[in-house]
């Protein structure tokens, strides 16, 4: 690192906050003035080109219209799920599931085959690059938000996606909690807050108590398959039927037409948040479909969807042991909360006018940045105490569940259970862990099977293996076993019911490295340019300092000359050349950097305040 970099305080490696949404994603960072969004919205859409190149974000969203068969959206709905879980989804979304991918779902995008975490990793990589360009340095650590109601497998899949994208995921934060952080930080509020979060594909409700900077979640509830997508699909189905009766043509088998119509439907839906009526307008080939839809009709159509959010809200109040009257504030999060009917339903239920000061699309990402600030030590007085959304249990005799950790327990949370051998000489014990509230195993979500191995043979009931179940601050289960007779750690085989094994994730990381090497050169050039931007920016700033004019003219000329040289090679694709010219600027500006430093130190010694 050059002296200039040090002297001008080029940013230390930042921890970014990422809102990995169903429809859109955002990246943010905490700086001295507070959380801030870096670069624009990145649509959570991924497309694989015939060349094998993967495109993510806005570009991919455009490709959805022209190359729908090699482009995928709303993949968050598939995170941590198996084929059997997603039959409903498959009726409504054009996911192309690869045959025979039972426990780990695989999708086909053109010629490529990818798992949902790999697809999400491409969105994350795009966010990472955007952040690196704005920050002018590498980004390797992140806080990623997930729906509060995400189960263990869905959380693990999100974490895997981060790893595959080359990010160390320091924390998964629940989206409604992140929103509360974003709202609560500058207000220092006390009291009880309800966060209603209706996004593209997920719904969460959380109730928190704010107390001297502690954000304590009392209860959470939700539906990980409920959101704006459902409204889109409803309108889409109606429009398709409409078109069939009007044109006598069924467009539903035509992916391009469906995507174009889907976009038209979304535009109409969004317009209805601000106008009493809107038109679904589709030009397809030489035909045109137009249908006006009034707010009253729209409200009637979506009422059942909005009503589906009310049950979880009531359960959440009950679990939090809080009455509607005790709720001090209601916060709205997620694009779908712009819909007037959603707002009025929330207002009616909680008998309070909801907060909407912060952009509902950005508030989660802003909160993620605050949590990143907490982890990085930049935010000292705030602390988040979150809960696990679902009860954790193990299978017992007769397919029943014995609950170990109840839902809405503050995390980290743990429980120990003693296991023994059922018959003489039994050396293995199988533990089936499930998540959910129902009494029967089959009605809950299978999480994983742990096999305790190598128990010394002994008479039935004599073995003593203590198993510790611990849900960490990310809401992810960790299991450890100890043989109480020997005091030794007991080895265990873990088979996740859904999702990737550690080995599979490692393989994907390796593969992504290999792919990365292919475009290593391109990346090096990009990085060199990022650094050039930073150097030139820092130099321009330094020139504004009064010290600059005290330099000898020759030195100032030398700075000009090296900057011009750097500019001349800036667009070349030789990263070594760009770097050589950066070094030139660094050399030429050394005197300037020192002079500014000295002047700053002088001022500081005089007790004058200087801005960082």
């Amino acid at each position, binding site marked *: 690192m050059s002296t200039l970099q040090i002297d001008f305080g080029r940013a230390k490696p930042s921890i970014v906050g990422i809102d990995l949404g169903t429809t859109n994603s955002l990246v943010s960072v905490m700086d001295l003035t507070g959380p801030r969004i870096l670069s624009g919205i990145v649509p959570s859409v991924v497309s694989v080109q015939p060349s094998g190149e993967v495109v993510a974000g806005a570009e991919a969203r455009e490709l959805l219209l022209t190359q729908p068969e090699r482009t995928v959206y709303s993949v968050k709905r598939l995170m941590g799920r198996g084929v059997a879980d997603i039959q409903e989804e498959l009726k409504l979304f054009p996911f192309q599931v690869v045959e025979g991918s039972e426990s780990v779902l695989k999708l086909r995008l053109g010629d490529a085959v990818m798992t949902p975490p790999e697809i999400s990793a491409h969105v994350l990589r795009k966010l990472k690059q955007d952040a690196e360009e704005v920050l002018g340095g590498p980004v390797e650590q992140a806080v990623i938000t997930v729906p509060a109601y995400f189960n263990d497998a869905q959380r693990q899949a999100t974490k895997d996606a981060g790893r595959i994208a080359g990010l160390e995921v*320091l*924390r998964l934060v629940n989206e409604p909690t992140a929103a509360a952080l974003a709202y609560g930080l500058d207000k220092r509020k006390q009291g009880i807050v309800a966060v209603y979060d209706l996004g593209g594909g997920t719904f969460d409700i959380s109730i928190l108590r704010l*107390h*001297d900077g*502690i954000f304590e979640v009392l209860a959470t509830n939700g539906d990980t398959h409920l959101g704006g997508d459902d409204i889109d699909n409803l309108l889409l189905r109606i429009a398709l039927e409409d078109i069939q009766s009007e044109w006598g043509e069924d467009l539903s088998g035509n992916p391009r037409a469906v995507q174009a119509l889907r976009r038209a439907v979304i535009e109409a839906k969004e317009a209805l948040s601000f106008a009493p009526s809107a038109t679904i307008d589709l030009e397809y080939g030489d035909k045109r479909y137009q249908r006006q839809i009034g707010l009253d009709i729209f409200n009637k159509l979506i009422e059942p969807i909005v009503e589906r959010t009310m049950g979880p809200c009531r359960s959440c109040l009950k679990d939090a042991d809080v009455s509607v009257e005790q709720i001090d504030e209601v916060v709205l999060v997620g694009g779908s909360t712009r819909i007037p009917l959603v707002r009025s339903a929330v207002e009616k239920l909680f008998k309070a006018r909801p907060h909407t000061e912060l952009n509902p699309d950005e508030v989660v990402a802003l909160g993620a940045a605050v*949590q990143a600030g*907490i*982890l*990085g*030590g930049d935010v000292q007085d705030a*602390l*988040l*105490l979150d809960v696990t959304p679902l009860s954790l249990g193990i299978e017992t005799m007769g397919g029943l569940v014995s609950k170990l950790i109840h839902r809405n*327990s*503050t*995390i*980290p*949370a*743990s*429980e120990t259970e003693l296991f023994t051998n059922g018959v003489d000489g039994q050396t293995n014990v199988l533990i089936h862990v499930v998540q959910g509230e129902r009494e029967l195993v089959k009605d809950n979500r299978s999480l994983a099977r742990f096999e305790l191995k190598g128990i010394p043979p002994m008479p039935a009931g004599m073995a003593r293996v203590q198993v510790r179940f*611990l849900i*960490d*601050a990310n809401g992810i289960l960790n299991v450890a076993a100890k043989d109480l007779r020997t005091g030794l750690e007991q080895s265990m085989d873990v088979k996740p019911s859904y999702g990737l094994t550690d080995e599979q994730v490692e393989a994907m990381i390796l593969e992504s490295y290999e792919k990365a090497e292919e475009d290593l050169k391109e990346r090096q050039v990009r990085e060199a340019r990022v650094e050039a931007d930073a150097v030139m920016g820092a130099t321009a700033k330094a020139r504004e300092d009064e010290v600059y004019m005290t330099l000898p003219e020759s030195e100032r000329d030398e700075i000009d000359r090296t900057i011009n040289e750097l500019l001349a090679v800036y667009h070349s694709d030789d990263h070594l050349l760009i770097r050589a010219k950066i070094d030139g600027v660094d050399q030429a500006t050394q005197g300037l950097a020192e002079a500014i430093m000295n002047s700053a130190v002088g001022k500081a010694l005089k007790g004058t305040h200087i801005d960082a």
Partner: protein
Amino acid sequence: MQYYDALGLEPSLSLDAEDLKSRFYERSRQWHPDRFSRASAAEQDKALEMTAVLNDAFRTLRDPVARAEYFLKESGVELGKAAPPELLEEVFELNMALEELKGGDESARPQLLTARDRFQGMLASSDADLVELFGRGSGPAVLDEVRGALNRRRYISNLVREVEKVLHVDAAN
């Protein structure tokens, strides 16, 4: 007892709810894993461990019933499973009514609703009894009474659950 240690308390059946809460917040600020994200792996593990126990402790101790169960278990007193003798006759009648409703005899419903309300009332008063008991220290005689109260409470609460299940299943049909 580990849960009391985690909150810096001497073991006692009687606890002040506000004091417990402020101890919990104070220790959370100190030990939460968020405070250790740049620390060594060993320190991170320790923070995770401390916080998990702290959370488990707070969850258990703030609830009088869970606290009493924990206290008895740690004192080596086992909870029984026998039905409280004074309830036997009533439970017998209740079971008959439950069977009738399960068999489709709707005339049993009002009786069950009344029984449920009565048992819920008993639950509330047994909670008050527990708190009153807590005030009398933790000598063997008190522990024995607490044990009796907990058994009775658990038994009644299972009854209420059973009745509600039958009432709901039927309402859904």
